[in-house]
């Protein structure tokens, strides 16, 4: 993260003169099973210097977290470090006893864990959770420990740290909890911080703030950071050096710029290519076929060979290649062809047809008008009742409600993909469920093919269900585990009278092949498939009844990037052939940009901006869109956006701000009018709708430097926002 101060060469030169802070040599960690032991970390070596940030990147199952936990000596039974050395400041941690490790952990090596919602003990105050670390490792009095803890909280940007010391974790937002976790890590001034997916559970605007915080803290303190992440964007924005892991092996080691400019391992290239970047146009994402092999069934030869577009016979037979320097580059790769391959250019898929065009001259397939969905707050008869004196005079008993969706309009034309994007809690999933009448709308209308769904009875809705299908984030839990895939898909056909008998079997086979599985897959059960394959099954299931609209609710969020790219391409292909319309819900800006034709940016139950993808991603912007876009970490170290950091967190949908709901965090707020009037979602005549009081010119201006810099100081005054 010191990239902004020192260049990568500086780091390399310091590394030459000093002993590295962390020197991992041939680390091997395995898990014993009933059969052969599974090697989760296979002879991994790397070094990390003080002040350096090294990224360990890879997809799930690559072994990156196990590597990190091995360094801390925290491998749970039946796992075990069976080989190698972990030299930390010259001492071999692997040789230390558990008692000795306890004095290192939390003291000299600190962990910033992944899940801020579960990593804090819910029954202890956040203060006491910091204090216990301090008291454990430092010889200080209780009062001093408390002071140190409050300082650490303040340093990580927790407003009113002293007041919040005695608060419990549930009284903090996700981003603030992550700050508490960082404060715990910093409290003993460690030399090394292991950050294990520190921002994965956070929204993109919060992620931007946490990454900036880690950057700043490292500049002040000069500790080493080992950044474990699956997100190449995070790597590009924070790391100095990078190690890429695949199936337990370190397959590439490189300095940051080199990694992105000229990757030396085909897997790295594939990983970079698979990410839909917000600033690039694709018809089809370049993908890697297949998925990471199961560690119990590794192929002979190079583990990556079965998916590698450059694999030769020798790759499949000549054993696992060693990591070694690649000629003409400062990088090292575990690939026998590394010297001859030049992977500096990304692969461009063959099908480079023209972008599709959507015909919007006819009637829209789906029209949503003024849709509202309020949930009652609190439980029970008496729950959610408050006294309201806002009207003056006698207090009135008023039932509180969560305004999850509060007036949303958009339409979808046949063959079109419309995206709903926004951070958690913005109401996008509620819109999806309300559109499908899985939830009854509080107000407003949903018209499918001009039929008012909100007025239809449940039996009429049921007969329309075949035309509107849904795909969920977690196919594993939406597919019946006790039925074969063929049974699941076949039943959908029978239920809606699409096909039966022999015809049904034939069609199931065709569909499975259509989504890239074999017809033979029909006899298998859902758990026999990987996550990506299950999502393919879910798509086949949705297609079975020949729908005209598919609502996709975060369909690729749980998938690794290489698999995500495959699914996105599949969805696009199917749309091109069948003319199905998609309502695509996602928090991932890159994914939405790639797959959607038009896009609605949602904030606090309302649409802030709606238009074609080009419109939304270009000025003029709604200030929220602008902040959201700027927060996305680009998987390209040469591109750094001037991040617009938003103050505080999303207000409660029970009591949204008056006027414009974004005004409490808006860096471009103009004054009273924002507090008084709720801006209309106004069309500039070109179909690009923005709900903002600013003029289009003002919305096109960048947010001033001053604003971005101010954000933290403003935030510290915004305790109530948290």
């Amino acid at each position: 993260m010191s990239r902004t101060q020192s260049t990568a060469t500086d780091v390399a030169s310091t590394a030459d003169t000093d002993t590295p802070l962390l020197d991992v040599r041939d680390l091997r960690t395995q898990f014993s099973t009933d059969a052969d032991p599974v090697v989760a970390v296979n002879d991994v070596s790397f070094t990390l210097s003080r002040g350096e940030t090294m990224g360990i990147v890879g997809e799930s199952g690559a072994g990156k977290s196990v590597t990190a936990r091995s360094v801390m000596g925290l491998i749970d039974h039946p796992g075990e470090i069976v080989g190698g050395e972990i030299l930390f400041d010259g001492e071999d941690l692997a040789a230390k006893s558990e008692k000795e490790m306890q004095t290192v952990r939390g003291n000299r090596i600190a962990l910033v864990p992944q899940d801020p919602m579960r990593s804090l003990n819910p029954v202890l105050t956040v203060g006491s959770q910091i204090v216990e670390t301090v008291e454990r490792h430092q010889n200080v009095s209780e009062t001093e420990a408390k002071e140190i803890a409050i300082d650490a909280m303040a340093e990580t940007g927790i407003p009113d740290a002293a007041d919040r010391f005695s608060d419990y974790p549930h009284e903090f937002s996700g981003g603030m909890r992550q700050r508490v976790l960082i404060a715990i890590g910093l409290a003993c001034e460690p030399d090394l911080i292991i950050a294990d997916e520190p921002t994965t559970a956070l929204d993109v605007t919060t992620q931007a703030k946490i990454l900036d915080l880690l950057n700043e803290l490292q500049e002040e303190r000069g500790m080493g950071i080992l950044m474990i992440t699956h997100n190449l964007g995070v790597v590009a924005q924070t790391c100095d050096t990078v190690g890429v892991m695949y199936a337990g092996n370190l397959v590439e080691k490189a300095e940051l710029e080199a990694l992105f400019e000229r990757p030396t391992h085909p897997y790295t290239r594939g990983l970079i290519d698979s990410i839909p970047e917000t600033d690039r146009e694709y018809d089809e994402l370049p993908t890697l076929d297949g998925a990471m092999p199961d560690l119990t069934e590794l192929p002979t030869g190079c583990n990556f060979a079965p998916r590698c577009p450059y694999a030769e016979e020798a790759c499949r037979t000549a054993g696992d290649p060693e990591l070694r320097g690649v000629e003409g580059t400062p990088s090292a790769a575990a690939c026998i062809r590394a010297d001859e391959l030049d992977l500096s250019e990304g692969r461009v898929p063959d099908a480079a047809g023209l972008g599709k065009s959507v015909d919007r001259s006819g009637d829209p397939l789906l029209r949503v008008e003024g849709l509202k969905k309020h949930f009652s707050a609190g439980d029970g008869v008496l729950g959610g009742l408050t006294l309201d004196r806002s009207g003056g005079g006698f207090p009135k008993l008023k039932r509180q409600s969560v305004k999850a969706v509060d007036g949303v309009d958009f339409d979808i034309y046949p063959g079109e993909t419309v995206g709903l994007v926004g951070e958690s809690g913005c109401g996008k999933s509620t819109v999806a469920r309300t559109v499908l009448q899985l939830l009854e709308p509080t107000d407003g209308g949903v018209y499918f093919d001009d039929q008012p769904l909100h007025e239809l009875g449940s039996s009429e809705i049921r007969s329309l269900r075949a035309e509107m299908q849904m795909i969920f984030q977690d196919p594993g839990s939406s597919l019946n585990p006790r039925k074969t895939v063929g049974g699941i898909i076949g039943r959908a056909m029978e239920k809606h009278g699409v096909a039966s008998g022999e015809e049904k079997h034939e069609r199931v086979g065709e569909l499975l092949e259509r989504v890239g599985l074999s017809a033979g897959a029909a006899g298998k059960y859902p758990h026999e498939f990987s996550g990506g394959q299950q999502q393919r099954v879910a798509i086949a299931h949705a297609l079975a009844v020949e729908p005209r609209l598919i609502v996709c609710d975060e369909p690729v969020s749980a998938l690794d990037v290489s698999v995500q790219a495959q699914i996105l391409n599949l969805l696009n292909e199917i749309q091109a052939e069948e003319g199905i319309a998609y309502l695509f819900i996602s928090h991932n800006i890159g994914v939405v940009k790639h797959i959607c034709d038009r896009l609605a940016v949602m904030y606090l139950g309302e649409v802030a901006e709606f238009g074609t993808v080009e419109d939304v991603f270009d000025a003029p912007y709604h200030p929220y869109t602008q902040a959201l876009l700027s927060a996305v970490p680009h998987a390209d170290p040469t591109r750094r956006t001037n991040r617009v950091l938003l103050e505080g967190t999303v207000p409660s949908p029970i009591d949204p701000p008056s006027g414009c709901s974004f005004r409490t965090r808006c860096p471009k707020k103009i004054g009273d009018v924002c507090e008084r009037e709720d801006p209309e979602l106004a069309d500039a005549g070109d179909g690009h709708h923005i709900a903002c009081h600013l003029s289009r010119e003002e919305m096109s201006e960048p947010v001033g430097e001053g604003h971005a810099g101010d954000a933290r100081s403003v935030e510290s005054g915004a305790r109530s926002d948290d």
Partner: protein
Amino acid sequence: MSMLSYLVRRVGFLAVTLLFVTLITFVVTNVLPGDVAVLILGPNASEASLQALRADLGLNQPLWVQYLDWLWALFQLDMGQSLRFGEPVWGLIMDKLPRSLLLAVAATAFAVVLSLPLGVIAAVKQNEPADVAASMFGFVGVSIPIFLWGLVFILVFAVWLNLFPTGGFVAPSQAENGWMTTIRHLVLPATSMGFALTAYVMRMTRSSMLEELGDEYVKLARAKGMSERVVVIRHAFRNAVIPVITVIAFQFAYAFGGIVVLEQVFFWPGMGKLTLTAIQSRDIPLLQGCIIVVAMMYMLSNLAADVLYAYFDPRIRYGGEN
């Protein structure tokens, strides 16, 4: 939701439940066969005197009026006269209730003291011999009925080893050694009942501990360099005990129900004996009183659990997730 409103809601819930209990008790005891007037005056009483007594007792009133009268009296702790003993029911119950409470509380306390550490050890040593032994012990505990434990304990500790009396209750005021004598009489019934209760609490503690030990905050506590003792006790156990509290409350209520048999085994003259007498002698007012009091005990133990819940879980104390 503040702590206060949480408690007000729990108490309100309790009051409504109690009202239902009184209704059910009243209805059930009134449809039981047997004419109260005949029961009191005997089978040879004249029709005139029976009629007079019925009028006197209000038995000619519509049932709902009788219920309201009874409820109003109950509200004033007037449970009527026992037919069998000719004394106020309230006094009879107040005489026996403390003895049963003593037994139930002692048994529950014994069970808790034994089962919490056992459950924690079993979880920490999952699948190791200590865990297997503890689980086995738990299984045996549940499978064997309370009264059998009682008989075994009497045989071993009273008859063979002659360490404790075989049964009976001595009030501290009546004995030379005061509480010592009472406690000597309490040990066997309390432990034999406690053993049966231990199993459930232990198994619940074990599974709850296992769940917590796998949670992320436990991993972080280890990553902070905390000793295993701190990780287990301060972090995991404080969370794991929360669901166990409910089980303990249920077990206490179960102990109160199981007391009927055990009091027979140990000649312990408490609520169990009193209830049995009430049933056998068709003593409706006494039976009603016993049922209500036992139900009250059940509900109070649940209220206690709710209060403890709030004490241990700040998410309840300070209102749910926000």
